[in-house]
């Protein structure tokens, strides 16, 4: 098991200039990132959609590496995105998945069949050419260069500690520093992307 923040700290050293969608790791990533204009900390627009959002982004800008930190709850809800990603096969997409076995933001209830799921096997079966399963920081540190050094799409299942949030939604600290639309606008400005007319 890994602490999300500790894993992201290691990832940060290997990020390069990748565009990062931190997903459920967003509250940790905004504290770590030194390239916020290349980050899309979207929070949770609608559960289950991060993978297909990342796919769309990767297809739209094939010259930019796109790194997603998905969650197992999102993947379970949107598992049908995996074959689409595998079919479109964007070489610039790196699909990490945080697996803490629970719905951490609703109090820590287990996800379905939490103890038995092998998400990297699912991704492999959907056609991802490269998949990994990592459950400790040492292995993550030793493999991250290889993971990011190959063409995507790559799927990496990461076992992380549940860091459960149990406060009412309106009482939770607001970790996002800009709106979703501002984050997208900042990324577009950083990369020189013109929205289509």
């Amino acid at each position, binding site marked *: 098991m890994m602490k999300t923040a500790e894993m992201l700290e290691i990832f940060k050293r290997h990020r390069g200039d990748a565009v990062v969608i931190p997903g459920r790791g967003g509250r940790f990533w905004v504290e770590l990132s030194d390239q916020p204009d290349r980050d*899309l900390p*979207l929070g*949770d*627009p*609608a*559960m*289950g*959609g*991060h*993978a*297909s*959002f*990342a*796919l*769309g*982004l*990767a*297809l*739209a*800008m094939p010259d930019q590496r796109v790194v997603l930190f998905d969650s197992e709850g999102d993947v379970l809800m*949107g598992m*049908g*995105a995996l*074959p*689409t990603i595998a*079919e*479109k096969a964007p070489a610039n997409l790196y699909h990490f998945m945080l697996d803490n076995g629970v719905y951490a933001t609703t109090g820590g209830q287990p996800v379905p069949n939490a103890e038995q799921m092998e998400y990297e096997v699912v991704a492999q079966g959907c056609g991802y050419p490269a998949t990994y399963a990592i459950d400790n920081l040492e292995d993550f540190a030793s493999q991250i260069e290889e993971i990011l050094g190959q063409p995507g799409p790559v799927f990496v299942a990461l076992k992380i500690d549940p860091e459960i949030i149990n406060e009412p939604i309106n009482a939770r600290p607001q970790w996002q520093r800009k709106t*979703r*639309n501002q984050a*997208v606008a900042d*990324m*577009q400005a950083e990369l020189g*992307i*013109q*929205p*289509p*007319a």
Partner: protein
Amino acid sequence: MAELSPATVLEQLKKNGATHVVWLPDSETNFLYVLMSEEPSLDLVPVSREGHAFSTAAGLAAGGKKPVILIQNTGMMESGDSLRGWGLGMNVPVVMMVGYRGWTRHGVINDTAAFYTERFLHAFNINYYLVESDEDADRISIAFAEAQREKRPVAVLVGDEYHGFNVSR
């Protein structure tokens, strides 16, 4: 009444600069699929659940592309939360072409998919245009312009869904 030909739909997509078609086909869209897959300016992104169409389109739009969504009304209704969060919440200027299963031109509706379609769009405050034949095709361009201007999804209800895409070229 003239039917809506797939060539007309494709021409509208090209005319409006669509770059990607994010879609989940139904059995009646085969000939549109053939035309789209032969069109080099369009990249087809097949999804397995319509909700993914909205998040995929949001990503494409964030990256500077101009997607169009092609789904059926049944799938649109299944996509409510994704439409809310990814489509409307992220101000995605996307045209969603929706096969109007069960459309009877205001006749007796025996298909609940049709019964709820416009009610669903009203609930989400999505503006929409009905396209039944080639003569209506300019409404697709109107939808593209409105989506771009308002920075939000706009629907095109394809009221010819049962046979229009299946006519021979």
